[in-house]
């Protein structure tokens, strides 16, 4: 019980440069707090995120991975997030098929204006991942050696 209480998840958040990263900046400007467990990686577009990056994060010790991009239709590159949507739908469904907890992965569309949504999303995601506990099903024990 005590372990669960002290568990601080490692969360990797891939954010597209144009909307979600700006949304995160806005959350910052507005001092909207979310847990320090969330670390953001800036990518030009959500469609830059290769499934391998997500698996890599889990391998290296992430407990949750979230991808944020512009809302469908608002992609700076017009169509990038549509591909992201399909790719991640398929990948997440496959992870689910392999018995990996669904709540460890998430895609959320956050615009540059949605600082509040960014913070709320992160709070909610961290809460869910914390409830799941440490990632055991996609961890690579060697990394912790």
């Amino acid at each position, binding site marked *: 019980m005590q372990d669960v209480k002290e568990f601080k998840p490692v969360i990797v958040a891939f954010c597209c440069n144009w909307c979600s990263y700006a949304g995160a900046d806005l959350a910052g400007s507005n001092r909207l707090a979310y847990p320090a467990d969330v670390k953001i990686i800036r990518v030009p577009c959500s469609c830059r995120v290769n499934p391998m990056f997500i698996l890599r994060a889990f391998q*290296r*010790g992430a407990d949750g991975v979230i991808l944020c991009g512009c809302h469908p239709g608002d992609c700076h590159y017009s169509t990038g997030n549509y591909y992201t949507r399909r790719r991640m739908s398929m990948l997440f469904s496959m992870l689910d098929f392999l018995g990996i907890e669904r709540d460890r992965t998430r895609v959320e569309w956050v615009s540059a204006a949605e600082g509040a949504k960014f913070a709320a999303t992160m709070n909610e995601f961290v809460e869910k991942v914390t409830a799941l506990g440490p990632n055991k099903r996609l961890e690579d024990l*060697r*990394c*912790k*050696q």
Partner: protein
Amino acid sequence: MLKCTLSNIDKLFEIVSASMPLYLPTEDKNGAVFKKWQPGTVWSNASNTVKGPKDLFFPQSEDLMAFKTEGKKIEVIDTRTETEDFAVFGVRACDVKSLEILDRVFLTEPRDSYYASRREHGVIISLACNRPTENCFCGTFGIDAAEPMGDVSAWLTDDALYLHANTERGQAFTKLIADLTEACDDSAVSAQKEKNRKVMKRLPLADLEANAFGGSKTEQFFHSPQWEKLSESCLGCGTCTFVCPTCQCYDIRDFKTNNGVVRYRCWDSCMYSEFTKMAHGNNRNSQKERFRQRFMHKLVYFPENNDGIFSCVGCGRCLAKCPISMNIVKVMKALEVDTDD
């Protein structure tokens, strides 16, 4: 000669397991595999396991050491684990022989201390083959499947298991199970051997001979036009090398952990395109060259350096598992035709 009635065999496994881990063939979804005995484990008398007992002495992947880095400091960490006694039961004659071949590689200088340590801690209880498969051709390499070696040799009849210790370690093992065994004469075993040898003669590959091969035959076979044809459908996968009990190539790699590096070794395959990749490039660029290497090594290069001993024991695993059914038997037959010409 010691006799243990078959009804007592689970008891035997239990007693051995009480003092050391015991590995024996059990039926898995995929066929027979060596697994650690636990109460309830059912021993399989299948003629052959999918993979040999090689993993127990030379695991597919094993950590050699680790480096821990902190800032710019590096600390070396010993990760060795291979210091526990263990027993392997039901090793067929071909696989026993394969360990001798691995010994030649790993136990000659420079000695591979990881392998050596596992060999020193392992006791091998072999088992004669009553029902060899159509893929078996151990006879080609002078192996008698009715007379398996190892620390303890064993034979199976309809109602009993017969054991004979060949080494000190073997004797220690039979001592361990003394309560379950009684001394007996060789008659039952001799009869079983006779029966087994009769079957062996009828095997479809019984006539296959390796005489045409051996050290000093490099010139003769290296440029054979057959290689082109033989290798043309090879997928370049590693199945044959990974199921082979004598293949011993490995790669040493570093895995970057969160705190440093784990240095490990893992099986490699000469069939892989990166196998001979070096700083200057790769000296085997075509699948033909890689394919040729594998078989030349087994049939020519290895005997050249090892008193004429072939690096194949005729276990037949590559025949059973190659996705495109290309194997050493087809290679030997094709190359022999070549020498006839």
